[in-house]
């Protein structure tokens, strides 16, 4: 081992800065996980505080406010529908885009579809405000002009899961469609030629060739998303609804709950929630990876 370290000394030295960053920001914090099993207080520090076993976890799942169960539900709900629509729409884009021949049209539309990816969630939040603001938003203007009652969107929580899922799909549709297009460029053109010779029309070529060939890509990307289904997108939720307490219940995901409960409910409790998330993530990613290997000729996600 020392011989190897000596021989490739220069290469190992080049790895050091990155590894130091990982140690500082990923591995050292893992020691803090211990807080999840204690009743942390500042005087006694992380390792001196009273050990309480799984009490923090118990409170998360069975606490009387029901907030724990609620945020798990919200996280799974938003991620699940985000995954479904965030798969179907980009695939439709990629397939339809492939049917178009006009070069200029292609260039302009692709630029337009890819643009939302470049915006931060704060900017997306500003755009959503422009749509749904009570007095000036275009949605309320539209409702008023067509003779409907206007809606105080920022006080009506029932709409916001839908709005957030839409925003999520909107922001990522161009990006994800590029992944599917990348997969499609690798398809064997002779398959399409053969199908054309056999008299298959465009629609049949899409359903009989393109879709089946896309299946492995869809499965791999979906499995990756499923591996992270317990992780909410903090930036998305916070950028769009901020800390608006009227909407909070409806859209709070595990990640935003951890952040807002950090000060009110303490470090131990919120560390426990984070640990639950990470462990679920570890289990799901490992399972997904195994499944991915099965459908993908032995090639896993990692």
């Amino acid at each position, binding site marked *: 081992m020392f011989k190897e370290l000596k021989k490739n000394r220069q290469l190992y030295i080049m790895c050091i800065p990155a590894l130091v960053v990982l140690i500082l920001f990923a591995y050292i914090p893992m020691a803090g996980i211990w807080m999840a099993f204690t009743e942390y207080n500042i005087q006694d520090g992380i390792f001196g505080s009273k050990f309480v076993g799984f009490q923090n976890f118990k409170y998360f799942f069975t606490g009387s406010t029901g907030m724990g169960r609620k945020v798990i539900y919200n996280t799974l709900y938003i991620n699940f529908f985000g995954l479904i629509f965030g798969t179907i729409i980009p695939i439709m884009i990629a397939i339809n885009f492939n*049917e178009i021949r006009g070069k200029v049209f292609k260039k302009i*539309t692709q630029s337009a579809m890819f643009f939302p990816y470049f915006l931060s969630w704060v*900017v997306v939040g500003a755009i959503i405000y422009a749509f749904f603001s009570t007095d000036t938003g275009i949605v309320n*203007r539209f409702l008023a002009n067509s003779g409907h009652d206007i809606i105080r969107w920022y006080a009506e929580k029932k709409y916001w899961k839908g709005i957030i899922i839409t925003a999520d799909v909107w922001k990522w549709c161009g990006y994800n469609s590029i992944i599917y297009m990348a997969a499609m460029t690798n398809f064997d053109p002779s398959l399409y030629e053969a199908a054309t010779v056999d008299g298959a029309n465009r629609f049949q070529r899409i359903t009989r060739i393109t879709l089946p060939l896309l299946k492995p890509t869809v499965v791999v990307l979906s499995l990756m998303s499923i591996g992270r289904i317990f992780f909410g997108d903090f930036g998305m939720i916070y950028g769009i609804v901020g800390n608006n*307490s009227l909407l909070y219940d409806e859209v709070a995901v595990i990640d935003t709950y951890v952040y807002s409960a950090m000060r009110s409910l303490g470090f131990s409790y919120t*560390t426990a929630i*984070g640990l639950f998330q990470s462990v679920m993530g570890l289990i799901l990613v490992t399972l997904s990876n195994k499944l991915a290997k099965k459908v993908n000729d032995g090639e896993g996600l990692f």
Partner: protein
Amino acid sequence: MSAQKHKHIRISASDHMVKLFAYLFIGFIALACIYPLIMVLSVSFSDNSAVTKFGYSAVPREMTLDTYRYLFAHSGLRILRSYVVTICITIVGTFGSMLITSMIAFAISIRDLKYRNVIAYICNFTIIFSAGLIPWYYVCVNWYHMMNSYAGLILPSIFSVWNMFLMRTYFSAVPVSLYESAKLDGASYYQIYFRIALPLSKTAMLTVGLMYALCYWNDWWNALMFINDRDKFPLQYFLYNILSNVNAISSGRIPSGAAANIKLPSETVKMAVTVITIGPIIFLYPFIQKYFVDGIMTGAVKE
């Protein structure tokens, strides 16, 4: 004969339908993606009283530069400061990231490196398992003292494992024979990295560099975590603060008496700040877009 002809016509009719649908669908999605941006732009160039009266629209109402003039006259310094913070963070962060990331990516792209899989696993494990927000926040604040420091805006996101693997894929495309002949000539790995690997992967470096730069430009999470000194707000966080005040009031949860005391930025100001925040991206977008497409495609068809 006539039957065959008939069939031919029917097929091409269905093909035309598919084509027509494709144009309509793509056109619709593209419009849906770009329309909100046009609206934000046009409102920022509109007259505020016209916007309050008639609402938002995609065409400027009574086009004027008043909002921008007002903005720079009243909070120009504040915005300028946030701009400088964001620009500095983006530049320093991106260069730091590129150096750190390209070195390790280069190292583990060399097949002679015996423990490269171990190093890759150390990186990968941080994607699969993390300590969670609270322990991370705890060590950053209590042990590394990142509260209100610019380091808190840069260091936590200086190394992305995803970008590292993307870069490794690019480096792996460099022919090994070039390295070998350089080694025979007595070049060290530092020289190979600097003189051969980097120059040969210029496009790749630009791609990953732009990805990091976009990340830093759009970041407000680190600011939310560590910064409460207004002078150190990056641009995105400045915008976030404006909007979250507005949110609180339009939800009606602040009593109207109190709301009257909080001076709200006008509609056009909110949109103008949004435009200022995305400004450079709009101008650079036509030139940088292709690099991102390339990066996504390379990442998508890895190995």
